[in-house]
């Protein structure tokens, strides 16, 4: 057993104090100049072994004062845990425990002095969902305690059914609580807060102070009653001033000053910080919301104004809108007429079938008008930096269902080095969807849709291909998008007409013949070109070209 000499020979024992001792005690002291003590190596700030192996803490200071009074030497018996320290004393390997709380179990082999330190017991937790931390509430929880500490004894004695998580030391107990292995930890306020501060476990807080106090005494082996009375007399002789000095050195122990507790302060800072944040966030959010509402209202008002404007025929120049109005009113009359007649006519009768045909005709005419309105709709583009590949992918996503439904495979060959161009992505999406839908309808079932993009520099020799449109010059950098299908292609005699309004190859009622026409308008508004040809291997190929600024 390694013994560390603790205090050197303490000389100059206070003569006044010696006078308080009886002859038996003085004789005992003379016979026992060296006392072996042991204690918890890890119970800072009350007692602990520092990095140099020295016994330190409040217990150490008190022991120093006792040694000065008794004029004896204390030697430390090194241990790894408090549990081991208890065992050393019980086994007769040590005489004294400077820091120990009295429990029933310990009374069987220890003699305790009167308590010289008192710390309130506290409940420490990481849980946020509980408000009641009374002992009754704790009974249903997992409670972490340091194995061998008085709280373990006390809990097992008072609440035998409680679910204890035994930890070898305070740090482990705190960790178990922090990680949720235990709901709470019970410990004294001094050591637990000391360790929380030292280890920076941020999620732990002191939520409750129990009525129970940790009363620290010194204790000696049960066969050393004289030593116990010597210690009692020495401790009683320690002045309040000396006690305060020790307290000041190691800890703030005034229990009412819980707000000074560093853990509480951290928690308080955190809570007020969080509250502040919540309030700030709410305010910001409210303001953002108000702004949004204002903005939306304005936008709606604007939409309304635009609508009214166009409705007031200020858009006379917009042929389509005018046509729509002229056609839709008669359609509305027809619709109402059909509704009127159908009430008197049995659905399955011949007249009923005529009514249904009329309804279908109204619907078809309405669809044509819709196309016209699309065609004539606002030609202002919302230009912004646009990744064409992204627009292509978004558009493909939108026709994904149709593709699957028609068992059509999509082959993407999108250039990874496509520069962004200034464009209206929504309008381009309309173009791409149109092209994809045309391809799907042309292929019917089972086919392949090929979508490719690349950037390219036009060749110097002007006058051919895209350059022939006059929109691009030699050396211009362009983005080229190709949409190809494996359908039947376009009748070569009609290839030149595909972009004309109302040109359609689809059966009557299945298309307005405006899709490609609208698409070309949009592409041209972007300063681009669109062309269609039949592929050599069959199917149609649409090529779009946009200039890179």
């Amino acid at each position, binding site marked *: 057993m390694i013994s560390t000499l603790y205090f050197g020979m303490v000389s100059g024992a206070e003569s006044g104090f010696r006078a308080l001792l009886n002859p038996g005690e003085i004789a005992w002291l003379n016979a026992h100049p060296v006392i072996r003590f042991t204690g918890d190596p890890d119970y800072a700030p009350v007692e602990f072994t520092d990095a140099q192996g020295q016994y330190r803490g409040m217990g150490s200071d008190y022991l120093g004062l006792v040694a000065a009074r008794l004029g004896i030497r204390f030697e430390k018996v090194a241990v790894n845990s408090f549990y081991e320290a208890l065992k050393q004393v019980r086994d007769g390997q040590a005489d004294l425990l400077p820091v120990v709380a009295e429990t029933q179990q310990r009374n069987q082999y220890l003699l305790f002095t009167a308590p010289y330190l008192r710390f309130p017991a506290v409940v420490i937790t990481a849980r946020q969902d509980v408000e009641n931390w009374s002992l009754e509430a704790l009974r249903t929880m997992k409670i972490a305690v340091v194995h061998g500490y008085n709280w373990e004894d006390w809990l097992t004695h008072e609440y035998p059914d409680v679910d204890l998580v035994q930890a070898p030391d305070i740090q482990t107990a705190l960790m178990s609580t922090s990680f949720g292995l235990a709901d709470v930890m019970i410990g004294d306020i001094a050591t637990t807060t000391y360790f929380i501060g030292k280890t920076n476990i941020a999620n732990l807080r002191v939520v409750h102070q129990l009525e129970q106090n940790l009363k620290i005494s010194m204790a000696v082996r049960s066969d050393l009653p004289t030593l116990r009375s010597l210690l009692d007399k020495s401790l009683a002789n320690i002045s309040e001033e000396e006690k305060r000095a020790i307290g000041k050195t190691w800890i703030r122990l005034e229990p009412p000053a819980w707000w000074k507790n560093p853990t509480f302060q951290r928690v308080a800072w955190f809570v007020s910080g969080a509250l502040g944040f919540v309030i700030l966030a709410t305010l910001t959010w409210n303001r953002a919301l108000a702004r949004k509402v204002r903005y939306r*209202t304005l936008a*709606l*008002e*604007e*939409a*309304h*104004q635009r*609508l*009214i404007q*166009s*409705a*007031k*025929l200020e858009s006379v120049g917009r042929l389509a*809108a005018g046509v*729509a*109005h002229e*056609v*839709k*009113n008669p*359609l*509305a*009359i*027809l*619709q*109402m*007429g059909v*509704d*009127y007649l159908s*009430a008197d006519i049995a659905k399955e009768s011949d007249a009923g079938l005529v009514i249904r045909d009329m309804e279908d005709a*109204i619907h078809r005419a*309405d669809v044509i*008008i*819709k196309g016209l*309105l699309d065609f004539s709709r606002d030609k202002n583009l919302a230009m912004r930096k646009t990744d064409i590949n992204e627009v292509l992918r978004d558009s493909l996503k939108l026709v994904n269902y149709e593709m699957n439904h028609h068992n059509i495979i999509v082959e993407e060959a999108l250039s990874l080095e496509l520069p962004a161009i200034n464009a209206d992505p929504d309008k381009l999406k309309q173009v791409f969807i149109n092209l994809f839908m045309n391809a799907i309808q042309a292929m019917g079932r089972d086919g392949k849709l090929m979508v490719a993009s690349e950037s390219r520099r036009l060749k110097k020799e002007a006058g051919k291909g895209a350059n022939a449109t006059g929109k691009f010059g030699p050396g211009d950098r362009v983005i080229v998008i190709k949409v190809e299908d494996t359908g039947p292609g376009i009748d070569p005699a009609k290839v030149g007409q595909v972009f004309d309004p109302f040109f359609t190859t689809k059966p009557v009622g299945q298309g307005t013949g405006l899709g490609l026409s609208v698409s070309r308008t949009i592409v041209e508004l972007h300063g681009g070109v669109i062309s269609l040809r039949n592929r050599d291997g069959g199917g149609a190929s649409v090529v779009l070209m946009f200039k890179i600024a």
Partner: protein
Amino acid sequence: MKKKILVVDDEASLTRLIKANLERTGKYEVMTENQGGKAIEVARQFKPDLIFLDVMMPGMGGDEVAALIEEDPQLSNTKYVFLTAIVRREETDPTGSMIGGHLFLAKPVRTEQLVATIEKILGP
């Protein structure tokens, strides 16, 4: 008591048919007016619960009629819905869409849409 509906549209055949179709449901008392400029006077007399208002009319348009309704204390409880040929069907719900704080129905409209819209606004 039957709900009172005023239909304002410059197409006389349309207002006539709407009146016939709505009244046939047995739930509504319908009055029609084909001139925007007269609509507000008719409304003050008739005190409709709801007005279907065409936007594009010669003379006073539906938007101006709506502005007069808004200002008139006698008509403070009167609701109105725009009927228009300019809004596409696809842009509006079957029982109308709010645009700029107003409800719009796209022509051609079906009787069942009119009934659903009335019920949406005035209750069944």
